[in-house]
C-alpha cells in the first residue's frame, strides 16, 4: 500500500464497494450522537440530540459552500504552495466553490468528498459532547461552522489532499508520508483538541468542582444509549477504516479483511482492558468507562488498522484500554477538566496513540518520524488556531448558557420542553 502511487482509473467494483461502505459510515456519527446524549444529564437530552443533528447539518452545508474548496476535495487547481529548501510545501487546497464540477469529477475524488463530508460531521460532534449540559445550541452550531469552513479543510488537505504532510515521503524520504487512513488525526485528534478548547472556554458545569472536597460525580443519564451507541459505532468505524484504506492508502481489495479484523480486535482488546482495570479499581466494571475504552480502541484503530498485523492491533487496543480510564480520572480529578463525554481522553489521546503506533509498527524507514511531524503539526498549529477562533467566537456567540438555564436544564431553557416529560427530573439541589 502506498498513498503516493498514482492510481489510473478506479475499477467499477472498487467504486461500488467504497460507495457502499460510505453509506454505512454515518452509523459512526449516530453512535457518537447517542453516546453524547447518554453521557449527559436527562434534563438536557433532547437539546443534546437535536444539537447533534443540527451540527451534522451545519457541517455539511458549510463544508459544501466553503470548506471543500479549501480542502481541495475536487480537482480545480494545484493548491497553494510555497518553496522552502528546494521543496514545494502545499499548504492550502484550491478547489471549485459550491461543489461545481462534482458530476464530472473522477470517481475517486467524488468518493473522497463523501468521506470528508462524513468526517467533518464526526469531528464537529466531539466538542458538542464535551460541552454537554452548558453549551448553547447556537454555540454548538457556530463551532461546527468554524470547524467545517476552515479548520477541518486545512487538516484534510494537509493529510489527504496532497498537502505537505502527505508528501513527507516524497519530499523528505519519510516512509509513505503522514499516514492517517481512518481519520485518527484529521477527525479524532482534531475533534478532541476542539473539545479541549471548548472546555477551557466554557468552564465546568455548575457544582462540578465545589470549593472544598473532590469533584462531584455527575453520571450519564442513560447507559443503554451509551452502550448501544458503541455497538452501532463499530459498523460505522469499520466502514470508515476500510473506505479510508481504499481512498487514502490505495489498498488492494485483498488487504481489506485485515483492516476489518484489526478494527474489531483493537476495540475488543481495549474494552477487555478497561473492563479489567475498572473491575480492579472500583470492585465492579464501570459501564460508561467501558464504553469509553471501546471507543478509544476504535479511535486508535483509525490510524493503524490498515497497516499493522493482528497481534499489533491487540497491543494497540490493550494500551488504549488501560490508558483511557486513567486519563478520564486524571482530567477530572487532577486537571479539573469537566468533560462529560470524555472526548479529550477518548478521541484526542487515543487518536494520538493510534497515530504514533502506526509509525512505531511500520516497517518503512522514516515512517515514525513522519507520524511525529504530523502530530507536531496537529498539536502545534491546530490547538492554538482552534482556541483562538473559539475564543473570538465566544465574544460573538457566548458558549455558556446563563446560570438559570443551567439550573432548569437545557431542554426547558432552549427547547421549552423536556426529552422525558412523564418523568420527574432531578433538581439541581441534589448536587452540592
Amino acid at each position, binding site marked *: 500500500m502506498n498513498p503516493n502511487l498514482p492510481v489510473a482509473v478506479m475499477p467499477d467494483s472498487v467504486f461500488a464497494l467504497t460507495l457502499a461502505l460510505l453509506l454505512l459510515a454515518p452509523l459512526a456519527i449516530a453512535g457518537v450522537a447517542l453516546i453524547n446524549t447518554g453521557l449527559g444529564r436527562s434534563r438536557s437530552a433532547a437539546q443534546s440530540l437535536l444539537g447533534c443533528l443540527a451540527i451534522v447539518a451545519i457541517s455539511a452545508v458549510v463544508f459544501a459552500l466553503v470548506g471543500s474548496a479549501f480542502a481541495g476535495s475536487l480537482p480545480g487547481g494545484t493548491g497553494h504552495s510555497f518553496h522552502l529548501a528546494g521543496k514545494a510545501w502545499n499548504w492550502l487546497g484550491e478547489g471549485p466553490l459550491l461543489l461545481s464540477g462534482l458530476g464530472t469529477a473522477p470517481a475517486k475524488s467524488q468518493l473522497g468528498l463523501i468521506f470528508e463530508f462524513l468526517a467533518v460531521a464526526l469531528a464537529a460532534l466531539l466538542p458538542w459532547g464535551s460541552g454537554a449540559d452548558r453549551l448553547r445550541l447556537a454555540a454548538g452550531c457556530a463551532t461546527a461552522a468554524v470547524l467545517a469552513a476552515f479548520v477541518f479543510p486545512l487538516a484534510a488537505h494537509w493529510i489527504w489532499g496532497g498537502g505537505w504532510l502527505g508528501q*513527507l515521503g516524497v519530499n523528505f524520504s519519510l516512509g509513505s508520508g503522514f499516514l492517517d487512513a481512518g481519520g485518527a488525526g484529521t477527525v479524532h485528534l482534531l475533534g478532541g483538541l476542539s473539545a479541549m478548547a471548548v472546555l477551557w472556554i466554557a468552564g465546568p458545569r455548575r457544582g462540578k468542582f*465545589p*470549593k472544598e472536597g473532590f469533584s462531584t460525580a455527575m453520571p450519564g443519564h442513560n447507559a443503554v444509549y451509551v452502550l448501544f451507541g458503541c455497538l452501532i459505532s463499530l459498523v460505522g468505524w469499520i466502514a470508515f477504516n476500510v473506505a479510508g484504506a481504499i481512498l487514502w492508502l490505495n489498498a488492494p481489495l485483498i488487504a481489506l479483511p485485515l483492516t476489518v479484523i484489526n478494527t474489531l480486535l483493537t476495540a475488543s482488546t481495549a474494552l477487555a482492558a478497561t473492563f479489567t482495570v475498572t473491575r480492579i479499581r472500583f470492585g465492579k466494571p464501570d459501564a460508561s468507562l467501558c464504553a469509553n475504552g471501546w471507543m478509544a480502541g476504535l479511535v486508535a484503530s483509525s490510524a493503524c488498522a490498515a497497516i499493522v498485523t493482528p497481534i499489533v492491533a491487540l497491543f494497540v487496543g490493550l494500551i488504549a484500554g488501560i490508558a483511557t480510564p486513567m486519563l478520564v480520572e486524571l482530567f477530572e480529578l487532577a486537571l479539573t477538566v469537566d468533560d462529560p463525554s470524555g472526548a479529550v481522553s477518548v478521541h484526542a489521546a487515543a487518536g494520538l496513540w493510534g497515530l504514533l503506533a502506526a509509525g512505531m509498527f511500520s516497517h518503512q524507514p*522514516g515512517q515514525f518520524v513522519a507520524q*511525529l*511531524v504530523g502530530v*507536531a*503539526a496537529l498539536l*502545534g498549529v491546530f*490547538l492554538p488556531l482552534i482556541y483562538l477562533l473559539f475564543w473570538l467566537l465566544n465574544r460573538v456567540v457566548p458558549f455558556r448558557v446563563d446560570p438559570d438555564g443551567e439550573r432548569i436544564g437545557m431542554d426547558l431553557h432552549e427547547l421549552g420542553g423536556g426529552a422525558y416529560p412523564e418523568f420527574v427530573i432531578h433538581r439541581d439541589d441534589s448536587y452540592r
Partner: protein
Amino acid sequence: MPAGFFLTIAALVLFAEPMERSVFVVCGLAVEVLGLGVAVRGHMLARGESRP
C-alpha cells in the same frame, strides 16, 4: 506550542541525516508538550479561582 511546530519544520529543512533529524523533531515535540502543560496549568488556576 507553535514554537515547537516550527522546530520540527526546521528539523526537516536543516538536517538531511536521519538521526539528527529525528532528534530535532523529538525536541520540537517536547517543546509542544511543555507548551501544552503550561496551557493546561493556566486553565486549572483560572478555574480554581472561580469555582462556584
